[in-house]
């Protein structure tokens, strides 16, 4: 049973398209994240949600819109895709306020390629 799962694993699309990446966790964690890993492997936070509420929006363009329908899901929708959006996007979850803090667990990543 995968703890944090993202779909799709690979996404190739044309500039200007709109796409979504889905993320689900079955760990019972209250906090979820989206991270972007660029071509130099640098990992940068984009968003964090706690109990479905947006906590951090790290100067991400408005074209990126996260949505958390419940605590187990955090989806990422991207409008008008640009070449510079090509990267690997990681979803993660962690039990921040739940008294058993361990750390963040990451999904397998979604490699987005914009052509």
């Amino acid at each position, binding site marked *: 049973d995968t703890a944090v799962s993202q779909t799709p694993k690979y996404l190739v699309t044309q500039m200007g398209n709109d796409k979504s990446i889905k993320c689900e966790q079955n760990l019972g964690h209250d906090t979820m994240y989206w991270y972007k890993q660029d071509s130099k492997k640098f990992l940068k*936070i984009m968003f964090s949600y*706690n109990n479905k509420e947006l906590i*951090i929006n*790290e100067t991400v363009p408005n074209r990126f819109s996260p949505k958390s329908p419940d605590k187990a899901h955090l989806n990422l929708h991207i409008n008008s895709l640009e070449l510079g959006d090509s990267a690997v996007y990681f979803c*993660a979850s962690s039990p921040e306020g739940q008294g058993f803090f*361990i*750390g*963040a667990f990451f999904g397998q990543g979604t490699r987005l390629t914009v052509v």
Partner: protein
Amino acid sequence: AQKVTQAQTEISVVEKEDVTLDCVYETRDTTYYLFWYKQPPSGELVFLIRRNSFDEQNEISGRYSWNFQKSTSSFNFTITASQVVDSAVYFCALKVSGTYKYIFGTGTRLKVLA
């Protein structure tokens, strides 16, 4: 501001050699957590260890060991008798208690040659 520095961009060793990956962090907060993650060629991020700021005990897990020193703001990772399967990018990360952000270093690519 918080920051994590991994000065070693890439390290190459021959199998069975010991190797240490350096991590230096910056924070003014007194309660924080430090982590190491492994990213093998397959791309996933694998959690290796967490340390909190009040626990400076070193930890050993098989061939892996971690040395946490608050006096030098360092959390170094040593692999003993390295193996080819250890080849990966290793990330050190910092999280301050009460925040919802993990701050990653730039990673160290470890190549273990047979």
